[in-house]
């Protein structure tokens, strides 16, 4: 039915159409008549200026129709289609992620939320949980909420505004978010037992009111992501985990230590100079010190320096056992030519620890889709770790996505960014977010 073609020319008296008596024309042109055109009246010749005016008016009409069609299709897609609902959530969550605040539209359109704290027990001791959840019941469609266990990495980040904003924004978009930490993580340490804390949190979130047991995923930042990946291989949760997202995490603790030792990362077959931040040096020092006898462990921990990461006097170095000294040189990076020898000199306990802390050792046992994100200029964990992870997953044919970003500084958004990088990385981040939000949509 062509409604518009005739109307564009003859709608000049449209405003008076309402005064016409009520007889409905019983012809195919009845629609046009309703809009002001009277069938059979010849089209008067227009001057050039008049024709332009008519064209502009016709353009306006079609613009309005296009807008209406867009609102109809967009509205249906973003509310009735699960992929559309995920896309809508991602669209409002993305600004929160980039600006590290809660945008007004999200606060207005999102669910009201509440924050509770709880503790549970695990093999890694007490697990401290911060739960952010919508106060309303889950909507009939899809019937249950998505749950996300968030591991924010080492240190006590529970009061960090950026993290709190992100957790609140996720909850406002309809997710139940459970941030966890343990004493080990708060002490800037890593232990394989932390994976049990994550498993316990996932099991707890599955039983949280309104959360769908098969809609629970894990979001791990930095080293927290690597431990989360080990948890994702646990038989108690691996078959029902909706997804696992690792942001700025390492893939293999042994190759990570090698990168630390040679102060370089292997980018496409070329060694590129790389100096790690003090924090990851501190974390690896603590983790390795846990495997050493008290004397060695205490000396190594005593050398932790918040600026350089690790620094021991020649006298202290002389007191270390050969494996501890090898670990020291790897962590400090003062023997880049001896990296392989130093790696070989690590004690069996250290070697076992590195394997047990590596997602690479359990990757075949993880069943959930994996999303990998990494800052291209990361000074905490080389981005080549995620590249290696991506390559391994590709080889295995495991469902995954990998994205490198330049807008982040490790896992936090850099300030003073131009619109170009924000747009480029924003689109990639949006697509990843949409995938992550699918289970709850």
């Amino acid at each position, binding site marked *: 039915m062509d*409604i*518009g073609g005739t*109307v564009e020319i003859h*709608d000049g008296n*449209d405003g008076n*159409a*309402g*005064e*016409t008596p*009520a*007889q*409905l024309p*019983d012809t195919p042109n*009845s*629609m046009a008549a*309703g*809009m*002001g055109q009277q069938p059979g009246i010849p089209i008067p010749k227009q001057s050039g200026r008049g024709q332009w005016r008519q064209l502009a008016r016709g353009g*306006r*009409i*079609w*613009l*309005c*129709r296009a*807008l*209406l069609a867009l*609102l*109809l*299709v*967009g*509205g*249906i897609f*973003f*509310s009735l289609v699960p992929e*559309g*609902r995920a896309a*809508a*959530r991602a669209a*409002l969550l993305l600004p929160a992620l980039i600006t590290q605040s809660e945008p007004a539209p999200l606060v*207005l*359109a*999102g*669910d009201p939320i509440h924050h509770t704290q709880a503790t549970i027990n695990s093999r890694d001791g007490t697990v401290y949980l911060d739960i952010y959840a919508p106060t*309303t019941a*889950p*909507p*009939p*469609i899809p019937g249950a909420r998505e749950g996300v266990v968030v591991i924010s990495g080492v240190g006590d980040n529970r009061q960090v505004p950026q993290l709190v904003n992100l957790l609140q924004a996720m909850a406002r*978009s*309809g997710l139940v978010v459970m941030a966890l930490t343990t004493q080990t993580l708060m002490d800037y340490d890593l232990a394989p037992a932390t994976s049990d804390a994550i498993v316990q949190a996932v099991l707890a979130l599955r039983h949280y009111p309104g959360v769908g047991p098969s809609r629970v995923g894990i979001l791990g930042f930095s080293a927290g992501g690597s431990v989360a990946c080990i948890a994702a291989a646990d038989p108690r949760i691996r078959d029902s985990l909706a997804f696992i997202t690792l942001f700025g995490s390492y893939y293999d603790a042994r190759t990570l230590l090698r990168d630390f030792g040679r102060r370089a990362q292997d980018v496409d077959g070329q060694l590129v100079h790389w100096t790690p931040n003090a924090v990851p040096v501190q974390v690896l020092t603590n983790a390795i010190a846990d495997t050493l006898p008290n004397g060695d462990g205490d000396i190594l921990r005593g050398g932790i320096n918040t600026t350089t990461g690790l620094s021991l006097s020649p006298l202290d170095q002389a007191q270390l056992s050969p494996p501890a000294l090898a670990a020291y040189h790897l962590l400090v990076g003062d023997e880049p030519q001896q990296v392989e020898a130093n790696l070989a000199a690590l004690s069996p306990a250290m070697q076992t620890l590195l394997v047990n802390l590596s997602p690479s050792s359990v990757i075949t046992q993880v069943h959930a889709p994996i999303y990998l994100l990494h800052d291209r200029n990361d000074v905490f964990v080389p981005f080549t770790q995620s590249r290696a992870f991506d390559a391994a997953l590709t080889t295995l044919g495991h469902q995954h996505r990998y994205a490198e970003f330049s807008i982040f500084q490790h896992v936090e958004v850099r300030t003073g960014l131009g619109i170009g990088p924000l747009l480029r990385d924003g689109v990639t981040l949006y697509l990843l977010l949409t995938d992550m939000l699918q289970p709850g949509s």
Partner: protein
Amino acid sequence: MLALSFIWLLLGVFIGALALGARLRPLPAYLGRYGWAAMLGIGALAGLIGGWLGTILYGRFFGTACAAWIAVLSVTLVFFSPWALNRMQRWRASAK
């Protein structure tokens, strides 16, 4: 929810205005000379109902999207309904 309801109402009015701009004006026989006002009113009402319906079914987050498509559908149906009614009357007449 009050603020959201107001937004849905405004969205509906906007969609009603778009429908007028798109010349989807209801036939005068059915809505009289104030058809334009009726169109705005129908859009607003549909936006409000759509928003609440979306909130109940899909959650508050999706109320606005529902308000949009339900309002568009409503104003379009108002436009097409006289035509449909007319066709139906013709069909009945021919059946007799």
